[in-house]
């Protein structure tokens, strides 16, 4: 059987693009997406709380709208994302010694109620033999504004089985913490800013007719106010908490590997991701994510997955401090503590003509028991959460 040469080239190009696609600059037809998700953290149990009483934690409702299409030319993809989040609940404030020195969590007194709106746009365009992607975005909360932008590029040499990609981005954030500098919270800063430069480079290649892989490196440099204005650290010597204080610079590095293998007899794809991360706050982490993408019939996809994560602690972190550190740093944030986490999830999608319906659930459990190395003292604020999402897509 024969077909016109240009049609065959277009088909082969589409296959290659799909096999080596990178986020943000994949070619697409006009498509709209809507995702709703509810995120709910488990209550802090009474035996981890300074008050001895259980405490509710954070919950977030997210609405994410996406419009993607080719408004100018068939090979130039424009994408618009609008995100609205409604957040409420209490969050960890500081950790202090309880009975027998066991660390217990103090939660923020008042329930937080906050909204976030974010707009992100991207435009993909082929130029000079390369596929370029331009990104820009703005995120706004009452106490936090962020503007960011970036350029991504990918290159697939003719007749070669690999694609090289890279990108660089910049983010500028402004903080105006609620009640900063007030009589009630005199140690809380009233204004601050921070900047982040991020870059990545990677290569994806075809290993066989059923297997592809990708390896990438990313570097990030933060500068400015990197402390958390809503957290404090307890100092036994003064029997009082002080403001969270972290270095004003941070450099991080991550290397990520991804493998995709299709099993024709089962109609399924095995997906494996692994990441190693190192930052100059001495935090080292490992992440492994495995999922199984099962096609059932022509219209159903079911994707169960598991994720394991482990991190070591920042060099200045402690659950609480006997006295001030000589460098002045202090943080009891559970996100800087040593711990591990296990997450399980399942996502289901169903194609109905030009519509696609979907939904999924995820459960995440952080604990010292899941860490790669032995953890001496577990932070009492480690989080457990579940989330559920519903989605609707329409192609035109």
């Amino acid at each position, binding site marked *: 059987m024969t077909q016109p040469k240009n049609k065959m080239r277009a088909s082969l190009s589409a296959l290659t693009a799909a096999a080596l696609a990178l986020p943000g600059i994949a070619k697409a037809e006009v498509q709209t997406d809507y995702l709703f998700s509810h995120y709910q953290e488990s209550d802090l149990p009474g035996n981890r709380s300074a008050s001895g009483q259980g405490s509710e934690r954070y919950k977030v409702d997210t609405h*994410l709208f996406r419009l993607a299409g080719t408004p100018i030319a068939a090979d130039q993809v424009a994408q618009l994302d609008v995100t609205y989040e409604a957040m409420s*609940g209490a969050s960890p404030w500081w950790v202090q010694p309880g009975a027998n020195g066991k660390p217990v969590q103090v939660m923020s007194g008042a329930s937080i109620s906050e909204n976030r709106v974010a707009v992100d746009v991207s435009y993909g365009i082929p130029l000079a033999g390369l596929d370029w992607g331009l*990104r820009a975005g703005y995120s706004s909360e009452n106490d936090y504004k962020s503007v960011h932008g970036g350029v991504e590029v990918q290159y697939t040499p003719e007749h070669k*089985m690999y694609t090289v990609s890279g990108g660089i981005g910049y983010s500028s954030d402004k903080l105006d913490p609620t009640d900063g500098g007030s009589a009630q919270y005199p140690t809380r800063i009233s204004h601050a800013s921070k900047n982040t430069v991020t870059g990545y480079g990677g290569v994806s290649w075809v290993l066989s007719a059923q297997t592809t892989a990708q390896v990438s490196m990313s570097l990030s440099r933060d500068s400015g106010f990197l402390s958390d204005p809503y957290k404090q650290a307890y100092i036994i010597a003064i029997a009082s908490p002080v403001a969270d204080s972290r270095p004003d610079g941070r450099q991080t590095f991550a290397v990520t590997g991804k493998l995709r293998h299709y099993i024709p007899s089962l109609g399924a794809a095995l997906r494996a991701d692994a990441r190693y991360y190192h930052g100059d706050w001495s935090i080292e982490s490992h992440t492994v994510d495995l999922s199984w993408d099962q096609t059932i019939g022509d219209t159903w996809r079911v994707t169960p997955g598991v994720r394991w994560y482990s991190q070591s602690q920042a060099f200045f972190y402690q659950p609480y401090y006997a006295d001030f550190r000589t460098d002045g740093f202090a943080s009891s944030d559970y996100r800087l503590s040593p711990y591990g986490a296990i997450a399980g999830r399942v996502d289901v999608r169903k194609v109905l003509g030009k519509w696609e319906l979907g939904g999924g659930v995820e459960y995440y459990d952080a604990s010292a028991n899941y860490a790669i190395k032995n953890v001496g003292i577990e932070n009492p604020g480690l989080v457990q959460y579940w989330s559920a999402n519903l989605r609707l897509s329409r192609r035109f």
Partner: protein
Amino acid sequence: MKMNNVLKMSVALLMLALTGCANVQPWQRGDLAKPGMAFESDQLLTTYRQHIAVSKEAASGDTTLGGGGCGCN
């Protein structure tokens, strides 16, 4: 592991990857084009879950530039 050593190992791995490709003909790539084979097969959900991970964990980094927003709590 020192950051410099990790960087050197990663660059070596990338160079090795560039020479490790199989010669798969275009008409043999039908399975590679299946939806589940894309490195990010569901960008919308990936964007959402990465935002949660970045706000709850110390580590970050992928073939993406990320977005804005605090995620402080």
